[in-house]
């Protein structure tokens, strides 16, 4: 039914005279739908860390010359690498969507006398910027420009 919370959670610095029972949380606290979404959000840190390590490997291969680069590209065509990159992309999209959803309310409601723009406009701006940057990256990395 319940499991222990942190034993000092919400305890006062000076304990009262009455003996109290330790704080508890519901047993299924971490597996409720909203919490699962949040945990999934936090877990995306793992693919991000691995992508960071892969980026280092890319940089080293680039420095070691064409043979190392060709070997890396060959490795990247392995189904496991492809699967990982698809997973990393899904994680990035998931984090982006959640971040954009929460972004408008996390900002100061007003800067000076100006009223904040409506949430819908902020969302539209964020998605437009995301789409625009993705297109620019695709064009540059695809060799279409410059």
């Amino acid at each position, binding site marked *: *039914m319940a499991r222990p919370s942190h034993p000092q959670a919400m305890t006062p610095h000076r304990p*009262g005279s009455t003996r109290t029972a330790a704080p508890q949380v519901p047993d299924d606290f971490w597996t409720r739908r909203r919490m699962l979404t949040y945990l999934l959000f936090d877990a995306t840190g793992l693919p991000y860390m691995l992508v960071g390590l892969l980026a280092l490997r890319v940089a080293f291969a680039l420095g070691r010359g064409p043979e190392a680069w060709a070997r890396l590209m060959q490795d990247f065509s392995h189904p496991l690498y492809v699967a990982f990159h698809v997973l990393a992309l899904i994680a990035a999209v998931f984090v982006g969507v959640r971040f954009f959803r929460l972004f408008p309310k996390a900002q100061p*409601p007003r800067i000076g006398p100006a009223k904040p723009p409506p949430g819908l406009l902020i969302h539209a701006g964020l998605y437009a910027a995301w789409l625009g940057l993705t297109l620019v990256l695709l064009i540059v990395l695809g060799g279409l420009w410059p």
Partner: protein
Amino acid sequence: MAADSGEMRKRTFVVTRFDPDKDEAPRTVTYDVACRPDWKVLDALNHIKDEIDPTLSHRWSCRMAVCGSCGMNVNGEPKLTCKTALSDYGDVVEVAPLANFPIVRDLVIEMDGFMEKFQSVKPWVIVAKEKAAEQGTYSQTPEELAAYKQFSMCINCMLCYAACPVVAKEPHFLGPAAIALGHRYNMDSRDEGAAERNEVFRGEGSVFHCSYANECSEVCPKGVDPAAAVNQAKLLAVVDWAGSFVVERKR
């Protein structure tokens, strides 16, 4: 009452009990209650206390979601029991004290830790120098009021603390309601104490413990949106810290 009996539904309430004089740890007791269709969870608890087991302890007062006294975990979710209709639940309803708080007795939690955090954010208007009475009142435009009004609607029911995964793991964390209240005063055009509160926000119970799970705002019965306040406070605490290198603070 007799006319309503046909509509009554029998429910089993699994209620957490704890007697500090007898029990080592909280336990659960079940009560079978014939509930009227319009009852809230609090009505059932009051019925249990009045008619079945007078030793049951729980807090309540206004019965209209204003006083914030009757917060409990209902089926694991922090709820104001006076606002939570039994018609939304099935035959078994679990009622426990608010999560993450020490339990004084049965469904009554210890609030002292909350009050300490609450006071630490200096929840009052701070002015460097009080105006003389003949200088008039501290006026405010509707726009200035709108900047903080939402955060002043908190009724201190503490549901947000019961829902917060950071409170469950980090005992120093100031927590959603206290930060929302401090932020409410930081956004108040009459206040001059933002630098003092931002120091508290950057201190031991730092706003930066918050990982934006947003659970506090999901359970808030008054639509205060403490997660918004906490995350706005993070940004303003950083801006204030950076500003302290440029502008010398008055003490």
